[in-house]
């Protein structure tokens, strides 16, 4: 999956429809990120809606010559982290993938079950880079922008996360 940069130059803050039209091409990526981080489809949709609301409220702080996608994905990631930090979320929700139209991960393959469990035990920052890299297919440059770190740190963090997931990469963190 790859997305062309969306650069905002002449959108005025104050028009909701125009704002949503601007964000619409990015919503599939935002939704995919939230689903990857939260597992639950309904929670992911909630997170995206909350993130867009936050983005709308903070649009005044957005630099108009910047790429909109990393900015939105950062807000989505923060919203997902906020949701996971909420104690009630972890106790009361977490129904997982229940939608019949989705490919439901089954527990048939123990290795996949172990991987899923390990993924959701990762710290948020490590899970974020893994999801961005391997679930959204972003470049390390885009990952760095979204996570607010250097490209080298993005590679290193991804590599460490893969080690923890026992998915030994063929590349070293400096490659």
């Amino acid at each position: 999956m790859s997305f062309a940069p969306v650069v905002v130059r002449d959108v005025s803050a104050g028009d909701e429809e125009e704002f949503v039209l601007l964000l619409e091409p990015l919503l599939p990526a935002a939704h995919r990120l939230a689903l990857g981080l939260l597992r639950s489809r309904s929670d992911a949709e909630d997170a995206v809606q909350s993130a867009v609301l936050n983005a709308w409220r903070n649009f005044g702080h957005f630099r108009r010559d910047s790429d909109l996608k990393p900015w939105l994905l950062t807000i989505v990631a923060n919203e997902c982290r906020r949701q996971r930090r909420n104690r009630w979320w972890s106790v009361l929700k977490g129904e997982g993938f229940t939608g019949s139209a989705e490919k439901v991960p089954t527990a048939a393959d123990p290795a996949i079950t172990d991987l899923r469990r390990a993924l959701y035990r990762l710290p948020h920052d490590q899970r974020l880079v893994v999801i961005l890299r391997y679930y959204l297919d972003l470049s390390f440059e885009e990952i760095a922008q979204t996570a607010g770190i250097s490209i080298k740190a993005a590679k290193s963090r991804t590599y460490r996360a893969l080690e923890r997931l026992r998915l030994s990469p063929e590349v070293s963190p400096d490659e």
Partner: protein
Amino acid sequence: MNETEIRERLLEAVGEARYPDDLPSRVQAQLKAPRREPAHPRAIGLIAAILAIAVVAALFAPRLLTQRTAVPQPQPAASPVTPNSAVPAQDLEAAHLTAVASLVQPFHLHAQSGSQRIDLIGAYADAARTVLFFRMTPDAGMPMASIDDAYGFLNASSSGTRGVPGDYIFVLDAGPRPGIDGIAHLNVSIMGVQAFGPGPSIQGHWTFSPDVHVQASEPTGAYPQHFALGSWKVTLEVIELTPSVVHVQALIDGATVGDVEQKFMTLLDPSGHEVRQIVGGASVTVPKQQLNSTTYKSTRVNDQWERPAAAGTYQLRVQGNNASHVVSLEILAPGASNSKGGPLLPTDFPEAPESLTLQGSLATTITTGRPSMCGAGSGPDGIMLFAFATYFQANGNWYWLELSTDPSTQTFKGPATYTIPAYIYTVNPMGPDQPLYKGTVQLTVSKAQAPDFDGAVQGTLSGLEVVGSQSQVTLSGTWTCHFTPNLGPG
């Protein structure tokens, strides 16, 4: 594994996402919806503060008032050994824990997913087993649990049974790894509920994080570790007495899982009667992907019997491959070994300055160790060996590093560099517990003038089953130790 393979595996683990087409319209509707702002935030804050004070006062006032006149009570022991009223007797019986009911910790934890509520009402753990008592509301069936401790996933066979209606007992045939305080910090994850008998299963996610006291094991006396059954070579890897079971783990080289019969091991009491077996299982010793013509013929057997109440000399009868072997086990009455003094804790060993670095899956710098083995010695065969082993702490957990020459392949001849096996173990209240990493290192002994020894070490250790073979630890640096009579390898 290349990036494409990682993507594929992650996609399998997370699942494919279907983008909801109506999400943009919902987002737009939400943006246009009137914002709900608190009408009088200061007033609401004041009311909240008053309510909070009232709640705190209601909770603590009775305790504060009664404390003035109450007779000081002893603090509860760290081990929550309390008579158990939370877990019904029928549940304890189903879990073979009636005799040690007082060691079952009551819990009052619950989690809800959808309409299914699961209560964790009790737990018991020792070195051989972890038992969790669940109450299901409504009674939808058996929760399918997986358990992690502070060191990771507990990979072992498991079984389930019913207690009183609505209660289910989940038994993992492995004990959790406790910290030095004897407490294991568990993460219990339930991903589904399986009807007990015909019926639908429920998917969901329920999690619990109980801190469970891990009951200590007792010694069984000396026993021969290796023997042959015809062409099979049997290694008794573990024989332990926990408060609830006798646990024996054996490795059989030369036998496939299919070759090992159900009655491979039998425990007989002093009068020759079979002790009731509660767990029996045989498995391959490597992941299925690594099975080949050699590893296929290596089988690990794990059996458990109810802990006998009577002390005596019991017979472990091992039979297969048209041969049999009997091992005598001295089994104590439960609790009988308590008067003999507790095991040595890491902190019972004197500190020694170290300069060791661990990198990789277990990363730490060891500046202070507590060596438990230090120096050279010889056994009955007269072959000199050298051993250095130290307890150390990393990330709040105790570990044990063991570096020792192998007397079957080499003789210690004073200061030099030796290629030797190295291990890193977890530590439980009885001492070193499970090996986590194993490797071959270069051990340099620079000074070997008793009682002082020092030198350097360099090498890489690979993860064993518990942490996975992909985990690696690189060990380097210098070590020191000071021999005292409490220390091995004498």
